[in-house]
């Protein structure tokens, strides 16, 4: 599947999008378009709706109202197609505690129909610097190692759109540097990146566009 054709449909288009959790509006009537080929920095305080927005774009959630378009496709109607091209690095790692690093990656590889999933998994573990922990169960991993494995999981999908929720959190300075390298590499490979982070400096150096959220609404930065 080729990456998005740049210059045509926006990578992400939000039309009057709202999302409610029980009694609370997490996003309120958000309208925004991210031009194709540009990367987005998402800022805002805790609870401002960043994570909800990323989960909506990733189709982990459905909007309460409004329409989300990802890579020119409707995030509700063409959900499976969107899911194939989008990868989410979330607060929750999506990692099975009782499986090893390699097994975790291989499960995803098999679900995606990747050829030779074990070789791909080993290459990715090498890439994120976990090659010595290939056969260790995730339960013994530190927070930083989990983050590294989660990014390997994201790379396994080779997504056209990568959604990164606080990718620098829980990483040491070396880890932050490595993560910046991975993001730069993703962008060089033609992947659109959406980055939600508190580290605005790092974010601004990596992204061309910026969207600031406050109480679930867009604020001009």
């Amino acid at each position: 599947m080729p990456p998005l054709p740049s210059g045509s449909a926006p990578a992400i288009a939000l039309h009057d999008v709202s999302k409610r959790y029980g009694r609370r509006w997490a996003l309120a009537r958000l309208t925004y378009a991210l031009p194709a080929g540009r990367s987005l920095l998402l800022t805002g305080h805790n609870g401002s709706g960043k994570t909800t927005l990323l989960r909506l774009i990733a189709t982990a959630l459905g909007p309460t109202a409004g329409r989300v378009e990802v890579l020119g496709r409707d995030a509700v109607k063409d959900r499976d197609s969107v899911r194939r091209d989008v990868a989410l690095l979330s607060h929750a790692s999506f990692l099975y505690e009782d499986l090893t690093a390699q097994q975790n990656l291989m499960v995803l590889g098999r679900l995606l129909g990747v050829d030779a999933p074990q070789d791909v998994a080993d290459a990715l573990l090498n890439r994120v610097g976990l090659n010595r922990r290939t056969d260790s169960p995730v339960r013994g991993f530190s927070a930083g190692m989990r983050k590294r494995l989660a990014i390997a999981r994201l790379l396994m999908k080779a997504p056209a759109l990568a959604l990164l929720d606080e990718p620098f959190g829980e990483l040491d300075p070396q880890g932050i540097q490595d993560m910046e390298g991975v993001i730069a590499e993703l962008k060089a490979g033609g992947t659109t990146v959406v980055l939600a982070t508190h580290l605005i400096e790092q974010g601004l150096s990596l992204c061309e566009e910026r969207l600031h959220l406050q109480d679930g609404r867009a604020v001009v930065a």
Partner: protein
Amino acid sequence: MNKFVKFGLPALTLALLGAGWWLGLAWAPPDREMGEVQRIMYVHVPLQWMAMMAMFINFVAAVTYLMRQSWKTDAMAEASAEVGLLFGTLGMITGSIWGRPTWGVYWSWDPRLTSEAILLVSYTGYLVLRRFVEDPEKRAVWSAVVAIIGAINLPIVWFSVRWWRSLHQVQSSPKTVDPQMVLPLRVSAFGMLALLILFMVHRYRIALAERKAEVALPEALPTDDPALRASHSSKVA
């Protein structure tokens, strides 16, 4: 409509139930075998019928909700399950009271009774689930799934219990209905139907108001009122 629900429906309910029960207690003859005790039938049987009807409404509301989401069908599902559970429980209690002098026991494991007991437990579970899920959308979807699965189970339970019992001995419950008993039964049944509708309408309104309150709090931002919306955005910008 509002006036009818407030005054007409309660009056109609009282009149029909009063007439039906007066006919049943004073006008109809006592049962030849069971004697005066049998007169509880005019309460018990209508209660059971209406419980069944409420459960059927619940099933239809659940299916409708899964096909087309709306708070109205969800509220209807909640109302029908709760009222149905009330009527079913009362029906079961009156049945036990009837059963003691007639069969000599409060309870027997006959298919009808057993199935109903299982049904009541299922709907208790359904209502507990509704209490334990805060997110109104998830609550509506999950409880609809549980309602459908529970309703599908009912015929299976009935058949399996009948087989299970038939391997021991058949418990026959004589249901010989004298023509003079038909009229009071029919009038009480319509009275009970009016009571069911009355309860359902009120419970439905409460449920719908609760849903509305859950999904639209004062600080809820996306409002359809443009004036409110403008004031909100100006505060932030």
